């Protein structure tokens, strides 16, 4: 059994790719990697295209080694990974939509993001005119006596992002759920091409509004990797502070919202007060409630002053006073537990197969956290635990969030205690010739991956992979055999991003 590193040596290594290696493979090697993914020794981190190349990022489950395998496909076809490894399916459908590269023997060749409304096909490849007529989207069939379908969306009843859910139910019980997404596709990777690094950072920060810090963080790290830039210590630590504040705000909001979907509004009312406190502290400290456009390649644009420190400290002190009573309330309310315990189970095997990140993975026994492995500063210098549970139900996903709130509080305090002084930013120059960089950053939802190639001062290609790509399909599995009325609850416990995966 060759290791991931051995495999890479069989391919042609690309220089100027940091911090992990990239190698150009032949079809044989590509297929071997696909079969290893299917066997479960390795996990898929990403699969993306260029006009005549496909790339796949892989992480070795045991060693946390990471590598990118690339395959040139001048004939516009390449061997399907999804054929062996279902988590790749939607990614391959997307590569076809955007680039016109077709995965041979792809078991599901329906479009994914392309709804035939862009007036072009293959917008990032060799563009051709759109099809003159649209065929209706073929939802997958479910057969049996007395089954009925329920179609929901793209416009939902609440204030949430647009997507379509097609339920097939037998009475109250969901037999099959199929998602159709792509409604919020904005063509972000298209806008990235040829953009300056500054504009790239702005776009990256708008991939998914609730993860604006994590995306700006990941994008900036990828640029810095490509250019081999060292960021000042103070910026390294402040970035982590921003990321933990973002995680705190989102988890607090989510815990409340999940309870609200179980008709327990009291929790939401209290959790949202805590969330608002975090946002106000962030506003005082960084001039923006969501901390948007603060992290940029090279460092940060805004320093934390004493006023800001005090605001954050006050919030960090207040949450441990208020939050435990809410946790107790959650844990001791039978009507609430009745809805969350045993509902929407994701098995450990599925979470592992899909390499599900964040609370979805960690509630189903997958301990992966990019802050730990591969890890990045300043986290290797900080004390924190990565909570893991095995139940895989809504309740477990709530508990992971609760534990992560506690961890983020501790992390934010540690950062403030030890915040180094010094400069905040280094200039980002343009290097001659193409340079490639990659980064993994732990967003509140899980691992966000950014891969990019810079050429001169411009972005030649940038791919941003949201954790939701590998979580959405698990929601389809989780809802099976549950009742339709539990869908909002399950859905909220996942809280997948629409905009992040639609891009």
């Amino acid at each position, binding site marked *: 059994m060759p290791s991931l590193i051995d495999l890479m040596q069989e391919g042609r290594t690309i220089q100027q790719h940091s911090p992990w290696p990239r190698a150009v493979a032949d079809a044989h090697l590509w297929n071997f990697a696909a079969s290893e993914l299917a066997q479960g020794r390795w996990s898929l981190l990403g699969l993306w295209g260029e006009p005549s190349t496909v790339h796949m990022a892989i992480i070795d489950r045991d060693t946390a080694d990471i590598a990118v395998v690339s395959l040139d496909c001048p004939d516009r076809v390449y061997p399907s990974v999804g054929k062996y490894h279902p988590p790749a399916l939607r990614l391959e459908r997307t590569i076809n939509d955007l680039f016109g590269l077709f995965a041979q023997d792809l078991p599901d060749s329906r479009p994914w993001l392309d709804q035939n409304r*862009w007036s072009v096909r293959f917008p990032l490849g060799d563009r051709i005119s759109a099809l003159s007529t649209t065929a209706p989207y073929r939802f997958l069939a479910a057969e049996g006596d007395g089954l009925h379908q329920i179609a929901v969306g793209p416009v939902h009843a609440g*204030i949430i992002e647009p997507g379509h859910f097609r339920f097939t139910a037998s009475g109250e019980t969901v037999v099959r759920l199929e998602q159709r997404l792509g*409604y919020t596709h*904005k063509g972000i990777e298209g806008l990235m091409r040829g953009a300056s690094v500054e504009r790239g950072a702005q776009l990256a920060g708008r991939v998914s*509004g609730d993860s604006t810090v994590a995306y700006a963080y990941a994008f900036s790290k990828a640029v810095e990797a490509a250019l081999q830039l060292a960021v000042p210590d103070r910026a390294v630590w402040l970035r982590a502070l921003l990321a933990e504040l973002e995680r705190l705000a989102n988890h607090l909001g989510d815990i409340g919202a999940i309870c609200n979907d179980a008709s327990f509004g009291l929790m939401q009312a209290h959790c949202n007060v805590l969330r608002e406190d975090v946002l106000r502290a962030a506003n005082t400290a960084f001039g923006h409630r969501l901390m948007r456009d603060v992290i940029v390649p090279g460092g940060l644009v805004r320093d934390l002053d004493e006023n800001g420190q005090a605001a954050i400290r006050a919030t960090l002190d207040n949450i441990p006073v208020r939050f435990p009573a809410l946790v107790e309330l959650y844990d001791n309310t039978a009507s609430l537990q009745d809805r969350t315990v045993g509902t929407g189970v994701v098995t450990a095997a599925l979470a592992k197969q899909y390499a599900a990140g964040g609370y979805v993975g960690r509630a189903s026994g997958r301990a992966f956290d990019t802050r730990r492995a591969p890890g990045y500063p300043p986290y290797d210098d900080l004390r924190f635990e990565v909570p893991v549970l095995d139940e895989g139900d809504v309740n477990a996903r709530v508990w992971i969030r609760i534990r992560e709130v506690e961890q983020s509080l501790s992390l934010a305090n540690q950062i403030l205690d030890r915040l180094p002084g010094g400069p905040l930013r280094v200039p980002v120059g343009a290097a001659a010739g193409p340079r490639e960089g990659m980064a993994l950053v732990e967003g509140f939802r899980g691992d966000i991956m950014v891969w990019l190639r810079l050429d001169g001062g411009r972005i030649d290609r940038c791919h941003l992979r949201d954790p939701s790509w590998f979580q959405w399909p698990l929601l389809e599995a989780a809802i099976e055999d549950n009742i339709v009325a539990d869908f909002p609850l399950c859905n909220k416990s996942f809280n997948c991003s629409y905009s992040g995966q639609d891009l």
Partner: protein
Amino acid sequence: MRKLLFQSFFQGPFTEPAPALDPTAVEELAAALQRAARRRLGRSLSIREIDAGSCNGCELEIHALNNAYYDVERFGIRFVASPRHADVLMVTGPVTKNMRDALERTYHATPDPKWVVAVGDCARDGGCFAGSYAVVGGVSQVVPVDLHIPGCPPPPVTILQGLLALLDRTAKDATSIA
């Protein structure tokens, strides 16, 4: 739960004047809003929110209007589940081509009289997504817009101010028609 409810009983409400940072006090704004809403629409204003392709940042701040600090429901402003119950459509995002049809249909499902409020820089002209093959660029390209509330995303106080401006304007229009 009893303990928490009991505590809430004695603790002052969270709802408060805006933090010192904000130039306008939430209370003041809200009182004005309430007067205007009553004048124009009786006791309530029902809003149907539509994400027409936003990054979800605008939604987060619209959500925040419901938290205990802003508590918009106390002024009769409610977010409703169906466009058929709505007075106002609050639309975010650069209107993706994939959402254009859904936005149009929602607009037509909303009874007259209705107002459209475009929230966020994207909803104004596509924001930083303008020019993409996948976006239309601005809500007014698809449905008539009565008011833009700028920001990326606009904070809750700004959204409240925007609603007030809308109500003031529609009230004036109503007087001039009458």
